[in-house]
């Protein structure tokens, strides 16, 4: 069968504004606002809710035909006013869409006009604008654009403080909580952005919340310019597109850039960096976590050695996972992403110089049909990635280990750890158990000890 190549089939990516909405949810008292059609906000809400299982209000400027013809200024202003009134936000995070970008709305100018027109009204929210046209990049670009725009809007110059900025990339609420725990245990003041650990994974409500509690306060983000350092996760994230890159450029805050710390080696790098920056040793607790993880590697090594997997998802997640998988003897025979930074291969090579000898293949800008074609040829033992690989997994009878975003067909994706020793432990246990389950099911004897 000849495969269609021009169209994208079963995309392995989402659109730019989705990432921006998620990032804006990590700011305290912030309402994400999409400048475009009603559908963008609604679809993105629905998509995020299916993973996070939290109410996610995203406002929309709700374009009509006249809006598209005469520009979105009027609608945007009414929208901002209504959101201010109904949600009383401290911050409104405005992201554009393909529609508003194509008609060429000058959003910063509209915001300036709005502030001028309504300056005598009730308290004016802070407005952040991220340019996120859906016809460029993917959701991860929107995520970083929003984080960078936030810092650009809020960060101020100040005397150097003993403060560390941390930009963890698009990780799970559980990962964010773990990172905060680490920084708190190091007893170092920090500014983590975006922090949706509570807004996207919070408790029940005794009363109605316009905006769920949690998130990085705007006042804390203002301090980012006076930090001693920024730590930024994401191998393929370039300084020109990143928040830490901006802070380095504008305020001279040094940017320490590394892969997502998954696996022992990358986690070690992260803890060593924290030790260097804080000039203190890591708390004993993390040595314990590390020891348990090494012990688990020993206990489980036979199950995983020389297993072949296909890993897919956002490029940075793929790089981080590849580093981890190779250190336990699993070969990612294909590292695939719908993203197209052009940096995926280079980033993997930096961490695993012998990648070609190991047989690691890299493909950017692919969809699930491409990945499935590869799977048929490469015959991996299992697939690792988000829920969207399920169709391919079922069809080809290859087990899928779910991680990242979105997890639409399993419970608890928002509580899943990926980072550090703790996250690696969780991933390792799941991978080993997948192999054991396979073998147990395949065995005619039905061993009760494995």
């Amino acid at each position: 069968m000849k495969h269609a190549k021009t169209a994208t089939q079963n995309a392995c990516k989402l659109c730019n504004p989705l990432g921006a909405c998620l990032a804006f949810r990590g700011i305290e008292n912030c309402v994400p606002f999409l400048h475009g059609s009603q559908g963008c906000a609604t679809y993105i809400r629905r998509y995020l809710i299916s993973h996070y299982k939290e109410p996610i209000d995203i406002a929309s400027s709700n374009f009509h035909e006249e809006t598209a013809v005469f520009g979105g200024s009027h609608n945007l202003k009414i929208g901002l006013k209504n959101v201010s009134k109904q949600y009383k936000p401290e911050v409104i995070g405005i992201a554009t869409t393909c529609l508003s970008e194509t008609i060429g709305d000058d959003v910063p100018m509209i915001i300036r006009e709005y502030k001028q027109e309504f300056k005598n009204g009730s308290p004016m929210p802070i407005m952040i604008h991220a340019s996120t046209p859906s016809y460029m990049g993917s959701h991860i670009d929107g995520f970083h654009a929003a984080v960078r725009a936030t810092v650009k809007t809020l960060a101020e110059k100040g005397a150097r403080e003993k403060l560390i900025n941390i930009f963890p990339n698009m990780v799970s609420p559980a990962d964010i909580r773990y990172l905060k725990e680490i920084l708190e245990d190091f007893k170092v003041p920090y500014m983590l952005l975006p922090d949706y650990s509570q807004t996207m994974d919070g408790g029940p409500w005794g009363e109605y919340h316009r905006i769920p509690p949690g998130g990085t306060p705007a006042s804390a983000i203002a301090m980012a310019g006076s930090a001693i350092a920024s730590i930024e996760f994401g191998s393929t994230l370039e300084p020109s597109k990143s928040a830490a890159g901006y802070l380095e450029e504008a305020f001279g805050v040094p940017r320490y850039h590394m892969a997502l710390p998954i696996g022992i080696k990358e986690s070690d790098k992260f803890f060593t960096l924290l030790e260097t920056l804080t000039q203190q040793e890591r708390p004993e607790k993390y040595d314990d976590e590390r020891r348990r993880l090494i012990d688990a590697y020993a206990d489980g090594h036979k199950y995983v050695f020389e297993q072949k997997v296909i890993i897919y998802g956002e490029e940075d997640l793929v790089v981080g996972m590849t580093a981890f998988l190779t250190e336990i003897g699993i070969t990612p025979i294909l590292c695939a992403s719908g993203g197209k930074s052009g940096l995926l291969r280079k980033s993997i090579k930096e961490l695993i110089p012998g990648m070609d000898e190991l047989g690691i293949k890299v493909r950017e800008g692919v969809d699930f049909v491409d990945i499935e074609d590869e799977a048929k040829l490469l015959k991996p033992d299992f697939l690792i990635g988000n829920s969207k690989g399920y169709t391919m997994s079922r069809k080809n009878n290859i087990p899928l280990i779910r991680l990242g975003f979105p997890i639409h067909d399993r419970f608890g994706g928002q509580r899943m750890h990926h980072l550090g020793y703790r996250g690696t432990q969780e991933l390792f246990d799941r991978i080993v158990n997948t192999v054991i389950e396979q073998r147990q099911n395949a065995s005619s004897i039905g061993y009760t000890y494995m």
Partner: protein
Amino acid sequence: MEQISILEGRHKQVFEKKTGGEQVEIACDTSSLSGSVSQRACVFCGSRVVLYPVADALHLVHGPIGCAAYTWDIRGAVSSGPELHRLSFSTDLQEMDVIYGGEKKLYHSLIELIEQYKPKAAFIYSTCIVGLIGDDIEAVCRKVAKETGIPVLPVHSEGFKGTKKDGYKAACHALMQLIGTGSTEDISKYSINILGEFNLAGEAWIIRKYYEKMGIEVVSTLTGDGRIDAVRRAHGASLNVVQCSGSMTWLAKEMEQKYGIPYIRVSYFGIEDMSKSLYDVAKHFPERPDIMEAAKQVVSEEVKELYPSLQKFKKALTGKKAAIYVGGAFKTFSLIKALRSIGMSVVLAGSQTGNKDDYARLKEMCDEGTVIVDDSNPVELSKFILEKEADLLIGGVKERPIAFKLGIGFCDHNHERKIPLAGFVGMYNFALEVYQSVMSPVWQFAPRKGVKK
């Protein structure tokens, strides 16, 4: 607790039924207010949900990736055969396409996909920016249709060009291009089409069986478990039975005008409306009293089995209060009746797309004190759930977390349901789901009801 207020500009879309209260008409059929978090989607969404279940067609979304990605395998609309509808196809327009136009990409995408998947027809959905960059979709579709020999139908569903209802209409327009192109030979005089039944969780199969037991031929279900060939011969049916009125009334009217096929509105939810939908079809064929007899037989058999099984739920649920917020208003009517039959009252009823007549009828049906809303939002829904102390919310995925956060039960009555809620068996499933959610012991820990630490 802080008072939650309703936005100016929305007051006319919210109404509380009170004796002696002001009899205002509910405003509806308007586009959503900018900045309010509407639960509605867009024109594209309307078209996509209607055509989605056509399983042997290629559904190509012409635009940037989002619209196709968010609608990949999104509905629980099942097929008994081909499953091409469950794949997601997009022209994935990039910046250069926006500048230089996407026609070529569309053309090549279509030619390649049609070659690979051999669909019976193709639907091309235009999204927001396609309307702006001026791609001549019609011309590309004509060209590809000519070259491939299958119908290639443009669906004008640019997100901003109206509301979800306009999307329904665009989808119906595409279907109208197909209807009338197939043979109507061998179609019984005692035949119907079911419009606006999308075979979620196999519901169309359940309904079809009831009609078949009555000796009625179902020519085409639009669009549940849909096939292009069946759509093509839909004009051969004697009667159109419209289930989801919001999406398909336009099509029914068009078919009436063009082919002289009358239509009736029905609902398959709840015992009362389900039974009525069988009787109403039987009434259409008065010359065949045996059809009515058969309908009565079906109802009596089903109800005999169903009724006792509902009593357990009724006993537990009597006095509990429900809030309903769904897409179409017609469904709300059935849900109110269905809930009453298991002892529950309705304190909030609303829809995304109801029209004037719908709301007038809703006002009439509702109890004193019931709040009626059009095109509502999370803030309002939460406000009324709390004020009216609802125990259950019926809605879709976007409404679900509101219910759970506030510590009340929830029933998904939307596209993603996996258990059939239509038909007599559907009433049992509905009651069971409501019971299992409302009566769950987990709500004792909700802060409002609060088991304290």
